[in-house]
């Protein structure tokens, strides 16, 4: 064993202490960054994208969340054609690696856009966001997505730094059953269906108004009751059939 180790060291020295990004062939680096070019054509840095873009930032989101979404797209539980086609023949292991890569990436945040909301609308959104509505069994958004709304490790996404169009589409999907099909319980779908259209419109304008900063909160920030309510998300379980 030591012999092998020394031989390895020797070889590494001879070959010029190769960097991790050794070219695989003809100048193509053998890196994950090169391999995920198909992802970053859409999910690129905020400074390269149009403010009206649809695509969400994925850099810096919790790895478990990203991995679950990749599996959901591939396995038909979450529907978006471009993602389904790209992921069709991916393995779990490769998707896990890709999820961890994006989770660890720093990113340039979208600049906040001041929402065009009346003071009443703003107040009602803030109530939903930080207190919820016990009468309708609506928990505060911050109870799951973190006080700073930057998500919770390992599987709950942050809500900031996302384009308005994307947020609106996700609410539409949850209300119509187009996201997390067949997942039981499907906490976000239940919540979205209890919101009025006016509340949804206000939420998706209000969220892009906040500057994104900081990290996802730790998993212990979640109350046992909510952890139970969203157990399918947290466990990354397969669809309940």
């Amino acid at each position, binding site marked *: 064993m030591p012999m092998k180790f020394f031989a390895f060291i020797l070889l590494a020295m001879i070959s010029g202490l190769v960097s991790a990004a050794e070219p695989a062939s003809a100048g*193509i680096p053998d890196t*994950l960054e090169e*391999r995920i070019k198909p992802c970053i054509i859409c999910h690129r840095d905020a400074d390269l994208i149009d403010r009206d873009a649809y695509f969400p930032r994925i850099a810096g989101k919790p790895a478990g969340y990203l991995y679950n979404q990749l599996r959901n797209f*591939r396995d038909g539980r979450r529907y978006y054609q*471009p993602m*389904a086609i*790209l*992921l069709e*023949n991916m393995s779990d292991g490769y998707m896990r690696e890709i999820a961890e890569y994006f989770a660890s990436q720093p990113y340039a945040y979208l600049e906040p856009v001041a929402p065009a909301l009346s003071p009443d609308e703003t107040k009602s959104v803030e109530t939903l966001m930080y207190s919820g509505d016990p009468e309708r069994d609506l928990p505060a958004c911050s109870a799951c997505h973190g006080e700073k709304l930057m998500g919770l490790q390992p599987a709950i996404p942050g809500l900031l730094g996302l384009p308005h169009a994307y947020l609106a589409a996700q609410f539409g999907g949850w209300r119509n059953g187009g996201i997390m099909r067949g997942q039981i319980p499907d906490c976000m779908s239940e919540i979205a269906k209890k919101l009025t259209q006016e509340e949804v419109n206000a939420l998706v304008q209000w969220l892009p108004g906040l500057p994104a900063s900081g990290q996802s909160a730790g998993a212990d920030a979640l109350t046992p009751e909510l952890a139970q309510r969203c157990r399918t998300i947290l466990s990354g379980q397969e669809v309940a059939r």
Partner: protein
Amino acid sequence: MRNSSRAGFTREMLINPANEMKREAHETQRLRHINKIDEEVSTAQRSDSLVQSINQHFPSKWQIIAFVAGGLLSLIPMASAQTPADSDTEQVRRGEYLARAGNCMGCHTTRGGEPYAGGRKLNTPFGQFVTPNITPDNETGIGRWNSEDFWQALHYGKSKDGRYLYPAFPYTEYTKVTRLDADAIFAYLRSLPPVVQTNPPHKISSPYDNQFLLYLWRAQYFKEGVYQPDKSKSDEWNRGNYLVQGLGHCTACHTARNVLGASRDDKLSGGKIMGTHWYAPSLISPLEAGVGEWPIEDIVELLSTGINSHAVTSGPMATIVRQSLQHLSDYDLRSMAVYLKSLDEKRDNTPQKVRKMPEQVRQYVALGEKVYKEHCQNCHGESGQGVPGIYPPLAGNRNVTMRSPLNTIRNVLYGGYPPATAGNPRPYGMPPFQHFIRDPEIAHVVSYIRNAWGNIGSLVYPDDVDNSRGSEF
């Protein structure tokens, strides 16, 4: 690039259809032995090494004695019968392998669904077919079927209730599968956990839902019969033919279908895949995906890893590699390669003249060059040389130049990754450009790559791009 012994299958474990006659002889011997339990069982095994290789183990002497004694005493028969004999386990293992080779799961599983529980919808011009649950659940699956029922379906295209099956189930190819293999696949399906899943009924348009019409269709287009080996050809060639034309049912996609949905012939001459927006290239034409000029190793590499230095699989073929081909033994892949290589149509060796383009055409193609430089060149190279094994070369790439531009247009629109396989677990991919380049630009760039660097292909127009859209999910 590839693991050389996947799944631990060796040539000896696999059935060559040429052994079928030997199997019959073997079965006869087996009966005789059960009648004469005093005889030394292994003599028959020694008598034919090929038969032995099939892994048809005789019951051990003790099992036979227990069986006979049990029969006589009527006391312990169940206990001994319920202990699966080695041969049963072996049969199930072989069945699992064969089910992979036939890619039963590909159709009998929905996206993300329970394996073999069916429910996948196949859209055809004749209506929507929904694949059945083939797990051994009594009510919703094939739990009440016996091996004869399964044989009726696979070989004759008849369901347990006697109804004719629609040829969306490729019994037109599966009919070539041997009884021994069919029984093994059935034994494997029986070994699966039963899944209770009721699938929606077919939605077949009138008049295609008429059984009499199906009877006529069968009379015209269905020829029942197990694959008959060609004695003048090698074992490998025969095995390859059996896999390509029979169990693997490559013909189901790689041959055009007529207006009644029947394969035009069994020549693998290419055609649009029914119900999808993909073109399955000809496997015999040197202008499409014929492999006459590829070394065997390159064919095996493409089939098992999804990529080689000339080509990369995409669309439905990438899925077939992931679901089925990457799990096949080296011997079987090699056999398929030997067979496919033998299909090559004679190439017309007179070099095609690159004619001078009319000025208008030159200008049209030049528009694509601009798009190419901006979006494609970074990976596929200045002269379309690509990076072999990573980014496919476009110069001389037949997928780019073949008659149908459909797949190339889709590759540009939707991008994609080759399958993640044991031999290529972390593939590089092609970005989807549908949100970034408009239809006219896609038409320009595809026209360009079809006519640059010595490539010759027809021009592509924005309408062609629009007509290539759509997917089954």
